[in-house]
């Protein structure tokens, strides 16, 4: 069964924002998720996640002064689960049309309310056979630095590879080519791949 994470609540050509069905059930940073626009399946890399108040004007307040544990706060205030929301942003890194995976932006953004799924290990493996998506990660200008996003994405993908080392070396070589004139950035990302 595919693991459904939430649904799209904001979509542009380059990314989409999804809200989780369950508070705190966020996909990890760098993980590969997918959604759909009719026949086209859109792949995204999670680059940012946030949990906040449902209403922008109402900030949560501290409630645990008299409680013994953090869980106890939620137990005594069950309404909290309905007043808070978890959201994540995914950078679109490719799409699939039929059997073919393209590692460039899809023709149209996702529909609002499209379901968002976590990708299976098989899907991750078939997506990560090419590294053309790396340039999309490297060229982002987001609050989270591209080195972090790239490092996290490759670590996540490496987790499911048969030969993790060979995968990371191949990815590293691709990065070395893309960053041939920027060794400092390359060094930072390579440092993040080892972990």
């Amino acid at each position, binding site marked *: 069964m595919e693991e459904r994470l939430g649904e799209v609540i904001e979509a542009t050509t380059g990314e989409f924002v999804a809200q989780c069905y369950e508070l705190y059930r966020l996909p990890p940073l760098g993980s590969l998720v997918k959604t759909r626009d009719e026949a086209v399946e859109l792949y995204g890399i999670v680059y940012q996640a946030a949990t906040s108040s449902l209403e922008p004007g109402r900030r949560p307040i501290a409630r645990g002064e008299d409680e013994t544990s953090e869980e106890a706060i939620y137990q005594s205030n069950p309404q909290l689960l309905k007043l808070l929301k978890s959201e994540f942003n995914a950078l679109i890194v490719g799409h699939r049309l039929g059997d073919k995976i393209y590692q460039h932006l899809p023709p149209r953004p996702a529909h609002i309310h499209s379901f968002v799924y976590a990708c299976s290990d098989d899907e991750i493996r078939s997506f990560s056979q090419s590294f053309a998506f790396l340039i999309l990660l490297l060229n982002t200008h987001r609050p989270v630095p591209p080195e972090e996003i790239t490092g996290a994405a490759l670590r996540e993908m490496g987790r499911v590879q048969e030969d993790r080392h060979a995968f990371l*070396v191949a990815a*590293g*070589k691709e990065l070395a080519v893309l960053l*041939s*004139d920027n060794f*400092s950035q390359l060094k930072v990302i390579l440092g993040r*791949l*080892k972990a």
Partner: protein
Amino acid sequence: MTQGNSQRLGIVVAGSLNKGVDIRLDGAVSIEDVVVGRYVTIQGQKRRFFGMITDVSLGVSDPKLAQTPPDVTDAFIAEVLAGTSTYGTVHVLPMLTIGSDAASLVEGPQPVKSIPGHYAPVSVASAQDIERVFGKEDPRRFWIGNPLEMETRLCLDLAEFVKRSNGIFGKSGTGKTFFTRILLIGMLQKSKAANLIFDMHNEYGWAGTWEEGKSVKGLKQLFPSKVAVFTLDEENSRQRGVSTDFVVRIGYDEIEPEDVALLRQTLNLTEPAIEAVYQIRRRLGADWLHILADIGEEAASELVAELNIHESTFQNLQRGLATIRRLPFVVPHAPTNAVKGILEHLDRNVNVVLEFGRYRDIAAYVLVANMLSRRIYARYQERTERAMASGAALPAPLVITIEEAHKFLNPEIAGRTIFGTIAREMRKYNVTLLVIDQRPSGIDEEVMSQLGTKVTYLLDNERDIDSVLAGVSGRSELKSVLARLAPRRQALVFGHAVPMPVAFQPREYGSAESYKEFVTSERAIQDLEKLWE
């Protein structure tokens, strides 16, 4: 690096026809395995290019890699960077091309007139590639050695080789003599040429010595029916157990003023003394040296007065001539005619090695070599002209081997010695030279430029290197190959008889096994020839 069939090295990334092309090595290729002098093939879109590696260098994609080196103790980082951000480049000089259509396959390799395009794949030349360029061992081609770090047999077209004068150069002790022996055997087997070898150090005819003190067999021992040993020093030859065929003596009447002129520096003669020799020869005739030897004081002063020669010049000349007369093989009347003896042997296609025995001083060598060669050359010239006039077959080619060639061919006397003439007139009269020398810079430029094929061992004097490589295309690249040859048993051959320059390791000479190989190949050829008869 093992000799794979076509081991990929990398791709072409830049270049020019004049300067050669730059190859970026693949990450998997270790730069330490890529050596200068190695052959590579480049597969262009329409044709294959053959070239030689002439330089190896390191590159980085970002200068920061050199300024703040990464932590290479980390295997992961090192592995990622190898071949991407840090890479090796080799410089290749393309030399030949082979087109892919049938017509160009028949034509064989052609000199390059263009270069392969960007990103053309480059691989180490395979044995088949080498064979396609240099040919297989056959009745014309002789196995001379292997290209550096390859097992393939490198063959030299000796029939083509003997058509021009050739040179073997290299520092002392690099292996010139060994290679000369190999070449002489090759010529003896695969070309119709007869050889006349002026063997200053008694190394070619009979057993010669190695630097390590071991002795190696000479030509006469391996091919007794095809080699005759002439000696100037019978006693020495007998002591060394050489079976000689002819004892050479030189009569006074065989020495000409030209011979004396050649020895001007060696005999410490002045210019006026040389002029005097010519005058005296004209005045006294063929027996001039004999007459001068016994000339009385009165007759001498008469002669000096008559020819207007200064007294001190005459004294200077007499002292020099006395040195010549003191050479033990110079006698008033020679009992045998050495020139005739040599020619008789050469005509029967028997190679002649003239040993100098103990008379290793340069005066003896220059005198004898020049005198004999001049007269033999004159005979060849006469025969060739006669043959051309009557339409008869030309005489078989003659190759004269001389050592210490700069003594005969230095700019001062190259114009006067017969060797200068032979080198310049090339094959007009079917006589060519095989010049062996350790100081090529001492040889006249004009003569050097006329040498067809040059084989050079390690040279470390800048002037020598320049003089050997003068006029060769891709000079500066070859220079780096030449300067990096091993001190022994590695050489570079280029010129007329090879389609492209190649650094190689000469085949072995000196072990029982190697003798067997030389001699059996000789038999094999004879057997083959019999089949055709």
